[in-house]
C-alpha cells in the first residue's frame, strides 16, 4: 500500500495565541459559564467545590487546574488533573478529570496545549502514565484523547445502577 500523507495544515485549523496559567477563584464565573455552554447544565456548586480544592493547590497536593486565556484574558478553555495512586493496584498516574474548550475556538490547538501543560506537571512529579475516563458516546473528547496518543488501557470501568 502506498504511503498516505494528509496535510492537516490545509484543514482550516489555525492555531491561536494563548496563555496558560494556574486557575484563580476569579475565574469561577467564566468556568461555570463555559461548562454550562458545553453541557447545558449549571453546575455552579460543583465547580465552586473543585475550585476550593484545586485553586492554589501546591505541588505537594498534586492537583492541577489550568486555564487557557486569550490576549485580552478571555477564558478559552481549562483542564483539571490530579495524581492518584494505588487504586486497585495502580501505581501513581496522572488523571485528567476535566477538559473543556470553548466551542467557538476548537481545532486551534487549545486542548492540545492544555493537555501538554498538564502532562509537563505530571512529568515533573515523575509520573509516567496519563489516564482519563470518557463517556463511550462522547465522540469529541474520545477522538481528541486518542488523537493525543491515549488508547484503551488495562483497566475497565464497571458500574451498576443503585435505584
Amino acid at each position, binding site marked *: *500500500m502506498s504511503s498516505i500523507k494528509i496535510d492537516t495544515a490545509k484543514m482550516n485549523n489555525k492555531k491561536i495565541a494563548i496563555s496558560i496559567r494556574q486557575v484563580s477563584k476569579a475565574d469561577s464565573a467564566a468556568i461555570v459559564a463555559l461548562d454550562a455552554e458545553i453541557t447545558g447544565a449549571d453546575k455552579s456548586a460543583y465547580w465552586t467545590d473543585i475550585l476550593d480544592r484545586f485553586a492554589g493547590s501546591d505541588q505537594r497536593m498534586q492537583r492541577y487546574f489550568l486555564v487557557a486565556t486569550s490576549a485580552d484574558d478571555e477564558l478559552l478553555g481549562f483542564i483539571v488533573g490530579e495524581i492518584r495512586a494505588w487504586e486497585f493496584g495502580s501505581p501513581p498516574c496522572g488523571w485528567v478529570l476535566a477538559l473543556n474548550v470553548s466551542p467557538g475556538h476548537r481545532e486551534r490547538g487549545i486542548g492540545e496545549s492544555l493537555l501538554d501543560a498538564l502532562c509537563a506537571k505530571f512529568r515533573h512529579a515523575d509520573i509516567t502514565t496519563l489516564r482519563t475516563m470518557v463517556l*463511550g458516546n462522547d465522540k469529541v473528547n474520545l477522538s481528541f484523547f486518542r488523537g493525543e496518543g491515549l488508547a484503551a488501557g488495562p483497566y475497565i470501568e464497571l458500574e451498576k445502577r443503585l435505584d
Partner: protein
Amino acid sequence: MKLQKASRYALYAVLHLASAPDKQHSTAEIAEEYGISIHHLAKVMRTLVRSGLIESVRGVGGGYRFAGNVRRTTLWDVIHEFESLESDMESPDELSGNAEIVISGLDNVNREIDGLIRSTLDSITLKTLLRYGVENLERG
C-alpha cells in the same frame, strides 16, 4: 471483528482522497493504486457519496474529492454503511432446559461487546488511524 471488504475499500478511497483534498481522483485511479476491483469500488464510492464523506465532481477531470475533516471523521463514519455491529449468535428457535438462561445471559455480553466496539470505532479519526499505521510500520 472481521471487517467487510467494502469497509477496507472505503477506507482506502477516503484516505486517498483526504491525502489531496484539493484534487479529484477517479474510481479507476484509486482501484489501480490499491490493486482492487473497480466494479466493487464503484459501488462503495456511491455509498460514500450518499453518506456525504466524499463528493462527485462532474466534467472534464472530474472524479471524487474528500468532503469530510480528517480530524473529525472517524473510522465508524466511514465503515458504518458496510458493517453490522450486532453480534451474530446462532440460537435454535426452541430452547429447553437452561438454554434460555444461557442465551439471555449471552445477549447481555454481546450488547456490552458491541457497545465497546462501536465506541472504539467512533473515537478513532482518520488522522489517528494513519498515525497508528505509521507507528506500527516504523516499529516493524
